[in-house]
């Protein structure tokens, strides 16, 4: 790689690490802050939001540097997918930090973004030219759908986990009940928002497969697991909206469904050989 390439690579990595730093600050501010709007509480609240905004800005900058260095949009590898996922999660963190005062909300969002970003560091690889199989107009729509869906689902699982961990069955205080129901509602809305994108993900993948492989569906491991994920969230939506599943059951189901997302994203790429191997 030439001098410019090395410079791009270093700048990209530094910006990504800076994002993790800001996420850590936001996470700490969420963990140790409180909802008071004066004095120390207000300062920590401002720090939490500022750190979230800076995390989003730095990951956007890191993506821009990678795009400029590679001469194409970062849609081609697992690391690049993770980079885009960080953008969505950081964006959601900013939204949550601004919209909800409850610290469990922004703590979950910042923790999800921080953990995911840290994991993606292990998958870092230099930008490569686009393989012929990835040269398609469907690549952008397919990957964007996946990134938005997985970002929303990651946050829903983090919030569900926070809800399960903090739920005290005997605590019937009104504020606690309000907080839990607000959290459950947000988890449900995030899944409902992600579901159309999960659907687009499968549809665009099927259409692309028809052009590339000559059939809409080939039961490739990635396709299969994407379908399993879709069915899991379809079950979640049916059970919560039509069968009235609430509380711990609904939260546990959201976490279990996200475990399938994690396997679809990491497990299939690392463990199961298939037609999507060029995306690793």
């Amino acid at each position, binding site marked *: 790689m030439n001098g410019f390439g090395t410079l791009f690579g270093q700048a990209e990595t530094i910006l990504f690490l800076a994002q993790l730093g800001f996420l850590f600050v936001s996470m700490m501010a969420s963990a140790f802050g409180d909802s008071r709007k004066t004095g120390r509480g207000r300062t920590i609240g401002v720090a939490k939001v500022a750190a979230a905004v800076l995390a989003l800005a730095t990951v956007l900058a890191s993506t821009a540097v990678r795009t400029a260095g590679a001469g194409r949009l970062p849609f081609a590898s697992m690391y690049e997918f993770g980079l885009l996922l960080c953008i969505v999660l950081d964006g959601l963190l900013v939204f949550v930090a601004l919209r909800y005062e409850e610290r469990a909300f922004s703590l979950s969002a910042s923790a999800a973004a921080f953990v995911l970003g840290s994991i993606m560091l292990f998958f870092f690889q230099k930008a*490569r*030219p*686009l*393989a*012929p*199989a990835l*040269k*398609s107009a*469907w690549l952008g729509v397919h990957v964007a759908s996946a990134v938005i869906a997985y970002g929303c689902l990651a946050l829903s699982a983090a919030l569900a986990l926070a809800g399960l961990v903090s739920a005290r069955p005997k605590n019937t205080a009104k504020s606690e009940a309000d907080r839990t129901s607000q959290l459950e*509602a947000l988890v449900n*809305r995030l899944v*409902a*928002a992600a*579901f*159309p994108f999960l*659907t*687009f993900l499968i*549809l665009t993948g*099927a*259409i*692309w497969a028809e*052009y*590339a*492989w*000559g*059939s*809409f*569906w080939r*039961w490739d*491991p990635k396709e*299969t*697991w994407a*379908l*399993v994920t879709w*069915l*899991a969230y*379809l*079950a979640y*939506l*049916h*059970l919560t*909206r*039509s*069968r009235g599943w609430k509380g711990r059951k609904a939260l546990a189901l959201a976490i279990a469904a996200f475990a399938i997302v994690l396997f679809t994203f990491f497990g*299939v790429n690392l463990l*199961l*050989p298939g037609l999507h191997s060029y995306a690793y």
Partner: protein
Amino acid sequence: MGGSDGKSRQRFIFMSAFESCLRAASSMEAGLSLFALVACVAIAGSLSPALSEVIYSSWPFEALLVLLAANTLACAIARRPGLDRARKTAGKARLRALCVFAIHLSVLVIAAAGLWASLAFTTQRIDVAEGEAFQVEGRSFKLDSIGAERYTDGSVSEWLCRVSGPDNEKAEIRVNHPLRTGDTKIMQTGYGHRYSLILALPKEGVERKVEIEEKAFLPLAKDGSIGIVLTRPEAGEEGRSVELALVSGDKALFKATISEGSTFALGDTGIDITLAESHAYGNFILRRTPGIAFLWAGFALLAVSACGLLIDPAKAAKLGPSQNKEGKTT
């Protein structure tokens, strides 16, 4: 009278049983159980390529998919998900409820079109050498050239086949960009080289012409313990020269590059090898999928109706013009 009563009673029992069956078949419990079953079997099939071949083409798995479609159909007819709610609400809530019904409908359209396409499609695989002609729907095409475009680092940026049509019109077939002629799509699936070699034992005056595919093993000994493998260079003069390796087991005893028309003495084996000819060839799939328009329609309906889920149910209920602040329909 008694006979008439008996018939009415029989009809009543039959209708009751039919309704019970329909209710059970259309129930969400049945649907959720089928989701779980399909997911479990699909997961099992994804664990190894051998398992996937056994499971996904087996009749029990296909029967499960048919049952899932039947459950969705029964649900759409018997319970009309979303429609009853749509009648009672207005504005965004109504739109959302209609989208829920449309999602069920689109799954049925996709299932029906997919079934039609999977029963009626035709696939033909062909290997065509550079310069050779081939027929599609009675029309003659010629494969003019096969090649690879490369990035500056040497990696392949595009596999490219140039073809001439019946009226000598030029077209390209690339990965993700099939050529469409009539109802048939011509898709490029692979690319390789075939070599004609002349093996000679000059001392014994023996000569033999053999055809060998790129990367295939050509045994030289009767027990197959030693042989040659030809590999095309990654970049450069593709097809004009080839790397020849004398192989024993997994070990390459030596390697050499030979070019078209040249003769090479294979170590101290006494065998002379001449690369007489090299042909590039492309692997293509010719595919016709009837009913594909219905599949596209199902996809479009599913994509549009899935967007309805983005309408927040709580907000939609508040925004409904026919509801008052307490949420009561006026």
